[in-house]
């Protein structure tokens, strides 16, 4: 899946950093119909997890009430250099992941 992640490349130990992620996904509600009148089945990214050096720091369980091309911004305390990994999956079983590195000083 097409994804964008933004977080600072470097941070001081204990600093609260802003983490942003945007994923291209229609977040199909299941309430729409196609041109032929057939219902389009629901398909949303239902779960997103962020792990910082393997430890879960944020999780979002989402429904069709989250807008298409979901955007999430959350925070975490920078404690050690390493990687923030994002994992998500939708109702149709498609999964995605992304990784961003961070260097923490001090």
């Amino acid at each position: 899946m097409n994804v964008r992640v933004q977080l600072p490349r470097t941070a001081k130990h204990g600093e609260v950093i802003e983490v942003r992620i945007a994923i291209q996904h229609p977040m199909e509600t299941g309430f729409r119909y196609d041109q032929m009148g057939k219902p389009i089945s629901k398909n949303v990214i239902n779960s997103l997890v962020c792990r910082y050096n393997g430890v879960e720091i944020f999780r979002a369980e989402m429904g069709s009430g989250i807008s298409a091309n979901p955007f999430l911004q959350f925070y975490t305390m920078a404690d050690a250099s390493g990687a923030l990994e994002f994992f998500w999956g939708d109702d149709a079983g498609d999964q995605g992941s992304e990784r961003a590195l961070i260097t923490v000083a001090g």
Partner: protein
Amino acid sequence: MSGFARPALCVFPAGVHLRLFAVPLLLAFALAAFAAEPQRPFPSRSGSDFTSADIRALQADDFANPGMLWITRGEKLWQEPAGDSRLSCASCHGDAKSSMRGVATRYPLIDPATARLINLEGRILQCRERRQQATALTYESDDLLALTALVAMQSRGMPVGVTIDWQNRRNFEAGRAMYSRRVGQMNLACAHCHEANWGKRVGAEIISQGHGNAYPLYRLEWQTLGSLQRRFRSCLSGVRAEMLPYGAPDYHDLELYLAWRANGLPVETPGVRR
């Protein structure tokens, strides 16, 4: 919003001494109608001026702007070898940031090879088909939108600047005529909203001047990025007129007229609108 010639919509002013001034006045009006220089709205304002602070902020945020997802996609596609040629856009055009700078400000233009008006999407389609020998992309496909947005974004901040000359004048006049032509069950022309009533409200929304300088853009109503031609189709369906298919020559002519009308306004691709 008045103060310029609107031959298709004008009403004969009351209180004039008909006997004395009728003929010369009528003549003057007729001359004015036919010789009238096409007018741009004054002052020219981008669609973002008519959006809310939230939408302006979203457009300005290079991460949160949903259109940027297509830019990321476009950047990847730019590097990907495609078709039988195994050429990528980068193979010929190198870094898009430099090679595509200013390009979008000149479109649509007359393609010297075909002597036909071509828009940015058309140029990309042509490159893919002829030079990359790759499968054709379709209008409004994510890939075409991504590439168009990527190319247009390289002119972000630069003023739109198309030139009308003997080569494209016919297209320009056709686009201009289309702009003033009433269509649909509501019997409205583009000009009724975007020329005569920009700045006023329809429902809870403020009518813009109808420029195309931010396209392709992310329209919240579409929940995706879309092209200027999609916006034409939106408007046509809005007045309950038949939507022409994508790539229709009428749309190209209208794009040219719109580009001329937006001359001087900065390219804002990828824009965000409601």
